[in-house]
């Protein structure tokens, strides 16, 4: 049983390679993790317009995490139930610390603001970038492959006050040989692009401002921090002469880890369903792919 879970959220199922790479990078710096997410480990955010349903989903996830954390302590000889009879200080000193490593800022905020406020939280939590930053002395020597990129980061004003993603991620990427950081004062509204997509005009304005900031700095590579930003920004690669990568992709390239960003390939293909391939479409269910996947991959481009 691993001492940490990588809680990737739900919408990350579009980006299996980011989950795999995150796991490999964490393991390379000595953090053994098991990925968990999808509908069975939901923070409730997708259903929060009906809070009672969101709460039920979130509580089930907390029950799952609590059982896992108890298992970690038992496996390591800590004894979850027995530990309750010891002082918190002595228990903390004696026991391993189960840790949830988050990816999604919605999940991270829900854990802090709701899930952990109404449930026992027998585990520590950190965002992925914090977990890697803690291990940056182990990470740096692994970044041996030069990457030629003058990168701009899609940074938002939100979430950074809770987890300083806007400073940690440039610092981590700055350890990569060959890269230069195109710093700029622009910060997009929201905490990731997801919320902007449903507000008329907002996401298009952010994409225009991002491209302008990249022109001002001479950046050739747009780095996304979160999955919804990646989902919205990769379409810019087709028409605007830039490369769009997630920050985990860039670390992986520097470590020599191979990957394929299939979602980007599908989104920017003339026929996304054909790009997925008939065999995989059939395996996933063609009716479902046509109904749920194709409209997303062919949605209009905003700029």
């Amino acid at each position, binding site marked *: 049983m691993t001492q940490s879970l990588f809680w*990737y959220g*739900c*919408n990350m*199922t*579009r*980006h*299996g*390679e980011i*989950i795999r790479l995150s796991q490999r990078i964490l393991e390379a710096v000595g953090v053994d993790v*098991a990925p968990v*997410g*999808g*509908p069975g480990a939901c923070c409730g955010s*997708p*259903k*929060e*317009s*009906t*809070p009672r349903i969101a*709460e039920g989903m979130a509580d089930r996830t907390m029950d799952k995490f609590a059982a896992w954390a108890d298992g970690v302590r038992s496996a390591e000889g800590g004894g979850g139930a027995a530990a309750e009879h010891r002082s*918190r200080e002595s*228990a903390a000193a004696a026991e391993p*610390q189960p840790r*949830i490593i988050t990816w999604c800022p919605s999940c991270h*905020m829900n*854990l802090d*603001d*709701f899930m952990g*406020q*109404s449930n*026992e*939280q*027998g585990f*520590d*939590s*950190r965002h992925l970038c*914090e977990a890697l930053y803690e291990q940056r002395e182990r990470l740096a020597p692994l970044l041996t492959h030069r990457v030629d990129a003058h990168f701009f980061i899609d940074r*938002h*004003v*939100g*979430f950074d*006050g809770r987890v300083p993603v806007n400073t940690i991620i440039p610092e981590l990427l700055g350890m990569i040989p060959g890269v230069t950081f195109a710093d700029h004062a622009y910060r997009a*509204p*929201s*905490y990731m692009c997801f*919320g902007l997509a*449903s*507000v*008329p005009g*907002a996401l298009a304005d952010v994409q225009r401002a991002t491209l302008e900031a990249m022109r001002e700095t001479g950046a050739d590579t747009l780095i996304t921090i979160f999955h919804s930003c990646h989902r919205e920004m990769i379409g810019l690669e087709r028409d605007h002469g830039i490369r769009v990568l997630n920050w985990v992709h860039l670390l992986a390239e520097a470590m020599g880890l191979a990957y394929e960003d*299939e*979602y980007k390939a599908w989104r920017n293909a003339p026929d996304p369903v054909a790009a997925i391939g008939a065999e995989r479409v059939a*395996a*996933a*269910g063609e009716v*479902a792919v046509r*109904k*749920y*996947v194709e409209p*997303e991959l062919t949605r209009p481009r905003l700029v």
Partner: protein
Amino acid sequence: MGAHQRMVAHEDWSALRAAETARMLAACTSCGACFDACPMIPYAPDAKAADPGQTVRGVLDVLTGGTGDAAARNWISVCTRSGSCNEACPHAVNPMLMLRLAKWRANETGAVPKRDAAETMSRVKVFARLSFTDDEQRDWL
């Protein structure tokens, strides 16, 4: 960042919402600093020219089950949790949470339509079938 073995602060989300609502009503002076700091106001046509203090009072009305005014409902609808309001608030009200809880309340009363998320999880599952191996689907979901 989470803390190990944190005490449970509230019995459930209803209790949390009630406690936070009471705290916000007591702390907020409707000064409007949160409204002025919000980067989403340009995308809220009913709120753009509204009085900041009056709009905040509208949000507090929605938070307690009222319908608020058009400006308040529009502001609630376009909130994307930028958090600029929290930095601007001189009374530590946590306006970002205030707007979020107001949206929940408005969704329940019908003052603001619910976001259609009916297909969200179906989409998540189909993408998992496309992107994950069989073993990953078994182990990760």
